[in-house]
């Protein structure tokens, strides 16, 4: 099974939450704290500890689809929270892509 990130709302992917240019450790910890545990756990195991999705599913006794949907949701939440935390400290996000023709 190929690992696609599921998303119920595809339009939201186009308007990705931009990741701040400068990411401070404090901001990451604060943002992580706001991501619910079930999502945070799989994001840390996949993106930090580099376990495969299959390994995570087997060890945590979760269906592979659940692991992938939690990863997708967790990563998105983390980006949103990070943008919020960084914004509160005046760190501007990186400029996100625009659709051609959006410019006035």
């Amino acid at each position, binding site marked *: 099974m*190929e*690992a*696609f*990130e599921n*998303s119920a709302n*595809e339009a939201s*992917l*186009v308007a*990705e939450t*931009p*990741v701040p240019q400068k*990411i401070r*450790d404090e901001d*990451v*910890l*604060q943002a*992580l*704290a706001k991501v619910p*545990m079930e999502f*945070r*756990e799989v*994001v*840390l*195991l*996949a*993106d*930090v*500890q*580099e*376990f*495969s*999705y299959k*390994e995570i599913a087997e*060890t945590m006794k979760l269906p592979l689809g659940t692991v992938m949907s939690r*990863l*997708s949701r967790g*990563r998105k939440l*983390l*980006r949103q929270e*990070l943008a919020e935390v960084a914004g509160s400290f005046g760190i501007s996000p*990186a*400029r996100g*892509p*625009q*659709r*051609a*023709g*959006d*410019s*006035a």
Partner: protein
Amino acid sequence: MNVLNFNSEQCLRVRRKLDAYLSNELLVETTSEVLRHLESCEACSQELEARTRLRNALRRVAASQVPPEDLRQSIERQVRKMQPGFWGGSRRLRWALALAGVVVIVGSIATRQWITVQRGRRVVASVLAIGVSDHIQCAIKGHNYPDIANPPDKLRQKLGPRYAGLLDVVQQNLPGFEVLEAHICSIPGSPRKYIHFITRGRGTILSVILTRSEGAQLPAGKSLRSGVSGSLNLYEAHLDGMNAAGFESSGYLGFVVSDLSPAITMELASGLAPPLKGVLDAGSGSEAQLDLFPVLFAPITTARW
């Protein structure tokens, strides 16, 4: 404005796979497709760069939250004791340590949250201590109130025109309490002035105290407030044997202080704080300086009524 060419159909398809691409979870064919797109799409390349940056930041944070050595040794001991099963020992150890790492990061977050809340509570306590100290110094130790309530007219005169109107607000919104005394006082050595109502009820003395905030501020944060009355946040602290409930209005801090239980003190403050705030806010446009009424100002060390 710098406009990037953003082909939504194709970009959407690739972006759904970017994280899986970074995790090396894609089939070879799909990886090639993603790579081909990235070569020609600046916007998606930037998005990949941003997600890589975030992942690197996560790893950096994780690396700084190393499990304590004794935890690591304990895990290694536990893993060695386990019977060989589906996984080999080294793989099991890697998992155990990784989960310990997750726990440490999560623990670190919990610790930071706890520290933040504790700091907030200290700020609440330090602000409420402003009111508690006046209650103790003026009402309890100084006993600056008569056994029989002063007549309202006399109390209004002591409060001065700026604050005379607050007397009725306090009297009407503290059911079961009688205002014995009202004045403006201060604590020796401090320039801070207090509008102080000393009341008696439920077998004890209760103070209602207002003072200009002068930079002191109650912290924001739902976890720190103890109650809400209308749109007003109420905070509580137990200090020097007294329970205090505090609130903020425009430019003023308000306190209800007594040795009654925290629940009763909070309940009384809930009824009193909104009308007091209403009057203070309404009068904030025509601020009169307390110093305009020096005759009415009586330092508590000398004040006796």
